[in-house]
């Protein structure tokens, strides 16, 4: 997969925010590569945490995807989320975030460079964390997000209303992010 530039990434995200699932999957793939490159350099002291950070940042980005404004650079938006999650990790490890260049605007350029794709696996298992969520979150996420059923099918199978399924996915992924943060 070739790496799209800023306008290419932005076009994918704008399509995704309008509901295009294929564009969103492609967008997240590129985002994953960039996040990995960023965390490998910035969290070099914690190589085992890199993929966990990639996934945590990706989940955060998904939960806050409405916060992207189409007139802002998408790379700056992704980078701000990545940096926020990194500082959060370093702070929670009682490391010294002051060692980071905190407001380096040239970061974006380096951020666009990404490593070759491989199979990347995190230590933390988000599926196991989903399984531990309460039913009102777990059932909608398992149906729609993990098994790939439609909202209507999931509603029928669980006996929940379609809007309850949608809300369950939305709030459930936020709860998942909270648990990832709390237990990381």
């Amino acid at each position, binding site marked *: 997969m070739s790496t799209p530039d800023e306008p290419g990434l932005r076009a994918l995200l704008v399509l*995704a*925010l*309008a*509901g295009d*699932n*294929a564009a*969103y*999957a492609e967008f*997240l*793939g590129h985002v*994953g590569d960039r996040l990995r490159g960023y965390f490998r350099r910035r969290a070099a002291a914690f190589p085992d945490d890199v*993929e966990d950070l*990639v*996934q945590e940042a*990706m*989940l*955060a980005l*998904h939960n*806050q*995807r*409405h*916060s*992207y*404004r*189409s007139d*802002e*650079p998408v790379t*700056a*938006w992704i*980078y*701000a*989320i990545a*940096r*926020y999650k990194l500082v*959060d990790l370093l702070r929670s490890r009682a490391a010294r975030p002051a060692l980071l260049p905190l407001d380096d605007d040239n970061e974006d350029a380096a951020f666009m460079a990404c490593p070759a794709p491989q*199979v*990347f*696996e*995190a230590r*933390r*298992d*988000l*599926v196991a964390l989903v399984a531990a969520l309460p039913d009102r979150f777990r059932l909608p996420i398992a149906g*729609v*997000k*993990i098994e*790939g059923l*439609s*909202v209507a099918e999931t509603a029928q199978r669980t006996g929940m209303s379609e809007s309850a399924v*949608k809300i369950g*996915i939305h709030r459930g*992924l936020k709860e998942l*992010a909270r648990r990832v*943060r709390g237990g990381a």
Partner: protein
Amino acid sequence: MKTGALITMLSRGPIAADPGSTERRLAAATALGALVIAAVGLVVLGPRPDLASAAGRPGFWLKLAFPALLALAAFVASCRLARPGARLGAAGWALAAPFVVVATLALIALAGASSGGEAWSLVRGRSALGCFAAIVLLALPGFAATHVAMRSLAPTRLRAAGAVAGLLAGAVAAAVYAFHCDEMAVPFVAVWYVLGMAVPTAAGAWLGPRLLRW
């Protein structure tokens, strides 16, 4: 878990998102906070008895316009700081401008005072501590509302986001208090209104990293 599996999972199902939800959520929180503050102000303090005649004087409108414009600027700044990587931009100037204007008018008024005692009485007024305390206490429900909203959004500069959310609550409280307050001297407003609004602002900056983490 493999990252590819996470991507598959996140990209499935309904994913459309409304980019205007940041503004809507903050607007709803501000409106709710303002409603509670206005209700408490009306019931506990009440409007000044001579409100009708005071409304004919520029001092009254200055006292109202100052916090109202600040609230507007703080709202715009909150919307910006609620998004990752967004810059304050012109909202920063809009936040500073009302303070500069009021400080300038206050200095002009103080320069016109015939003695140090008269200048001090312009600053002190008759209700200094009451004004300060009322604005701080009135701001509390607004502070809770703006911080709950900000917490659900995605600020990455938590101190700045907490500060503008606190200022938003303080400015709404000061605007409501202006209907009760019968002081007309600009130096009074420049000191006690500003100090009253500074408390929720500082509290927001102090608590931001704890309250707004996501």
